[in-house]
């Protein structure tokens, strides 16, 4: 969208990096990019290397695949083994390890698992295969959750009775609250997820500044957007103020997307949820409203799920809280690689471990 030539981009980037270094001075600053898409953009553009050493960027719990707990995968795998079930899922879920298998392995053994790009394609499958129970794996944050909710509303209107969601949607603001209230992440400021914010607007983040005195900037995804957002965070820190600013105004209106919020709250309500590596967080997920519970796979299709086991040695939980960098995990780059992921952070291209592996090669092997 932003059209500048390389020379112009380089000059603007120079401006931001110089100002960031000036504002940071000698103090150590730790900023968290919450969103997996930011993590990838930061690595691709080499932004960490552009920042002074005392300004550190850590990745947060914003990769939907990464925060989906093992138990969810185990349940999806158990469903996929039922002959009357068809699983419809976004492609990035296939390789995520459950306790003893993956959806990809089940598919190779004949389970009926279809990759879709949208919840509506899941709904189409339900129409095309009336003899199957089609279960859509509904994961993701506030950007994706309204799209799953919209499919449920359409299924209701079209009276489709063989479409279900296995839901593990997560909400971003409660996760940030959990990080700050635990105190161990020591984050001085947040780069807030642009597309989540396009849905929910700015108000749900106000507590960051009001209750925790932590600056936050809703950030776009181009390298210059990210540099500008880091610069805006440092300006706040330098002036000793904390507020929620919006760098990504071309996409994110202050009030978000009211239609999407309404669809979401029609179908869902906030509920406690389990996050991989982070634990059980109050009101950090979504459960279906009573009227739509007939679309909830768990409530309607019985299934026996194996006991959940965590992968030995995997540090995903600490990586997702910004406590350790991937290279600190003893498995990183050894037994755990994108071709053979041990933990979820190595699976999705948005995962921190995968980004370190792909873009950090040669630098992480210090």
């Amino acid at each position, binding site marked *: *969208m932003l059209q500048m030539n390389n020379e112009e981009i380089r*000059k603007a980037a120079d401006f931001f990096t110089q100002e960031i270094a000036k504002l940071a001075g000698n103090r150590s600053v730790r900023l968290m990019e919450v969103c997996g898409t930011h993590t990838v953009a930061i690595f691709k553009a080499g932004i960490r290397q552009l920042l002074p050493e005392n300004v550190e960027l850590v990745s947060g719990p914003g990769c*939907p695949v990464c925060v989906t707990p093992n138990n969810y995968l185990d349940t999806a795998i158990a469903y996929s083994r039922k002959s009357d079930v068809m699983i419809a899922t*976004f492609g990035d879920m296939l390789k995520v390890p459950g306790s003893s298998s993956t959806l990809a392995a089940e598919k190779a053994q004949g389970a009926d698992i279809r990759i879709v790009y*949208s919840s509506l394609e899941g709904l189409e499958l339900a129409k095309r295969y009336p003899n199957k129970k089609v279960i859509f794996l509904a994961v993701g944050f506030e950007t994706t959750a309204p799209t799953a909710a919209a499919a449920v509303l359409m299924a209701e209107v079209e009276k489709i009775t063989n479409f279900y969601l296995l839901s593990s949607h997560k909400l971003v603001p409660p996760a940030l609250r959990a990080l700050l209230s635990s105190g161990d992440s020591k984050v001085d400021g947040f780069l807030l997820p642009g597309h989540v914010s396009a849905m929910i607007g700015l108000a749900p983040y106000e507590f960051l500044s009001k209750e925790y005195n932590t600056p936050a900037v809703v950030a776009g995804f181009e390298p210059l957007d990210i540099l500008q957002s880091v610069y805006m965070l440092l300006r706040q820190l330098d002036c000793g103020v904390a507020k929620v600013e919006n760098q990504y*105004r071309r*996409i994110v209106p202050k009030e978000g997307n009211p*239609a*999407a919020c309404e669809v979401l709250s029609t179908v869902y309500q906030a509920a406690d949820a389990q996050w991989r590596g982070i634990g059980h967080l109050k009101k950090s997920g979504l459960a279906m409203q009573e009227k739509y519970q007939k679309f909830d796979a768990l409530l309607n299709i019985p299934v026996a799920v194996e006991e959940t086991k965590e992968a030995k040695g995997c540090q995903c939980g600490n990586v997702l809280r910004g406590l350790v960098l991937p290279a600190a995990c003893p498995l990183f780059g050894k037994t755990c690689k994108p071709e053979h992921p041990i933990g979820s952070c190595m699976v999705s291209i948005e995962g921190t471990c995968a980004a370190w592996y792909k873009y950090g090669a040669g630098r992480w092997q210090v």
Partner: protein
Amino acid sequence: MCLAVPGKVLERQDMLATIEVGGVTRKVSLMLLPEAQVGDFVLIHAGFAVQRIDEEEAEKTLALFKELEEYAANE
């Protein structure tokens, strides 16, 4: 998974739009963005248009970046 891409609304029929994304056309649901009009640039995520792209704000961002670049050059 949260990746969203910009596209241009070419046609709309009820809650379904034909949208051009990088030279390719796709059908996209307007259930989450009922106000989208033909000619609008919108952000698309998982088969749905989810937000209008404010061209004026995009211009402003660009202008700001260019201004900063001049500032950096004169320093």
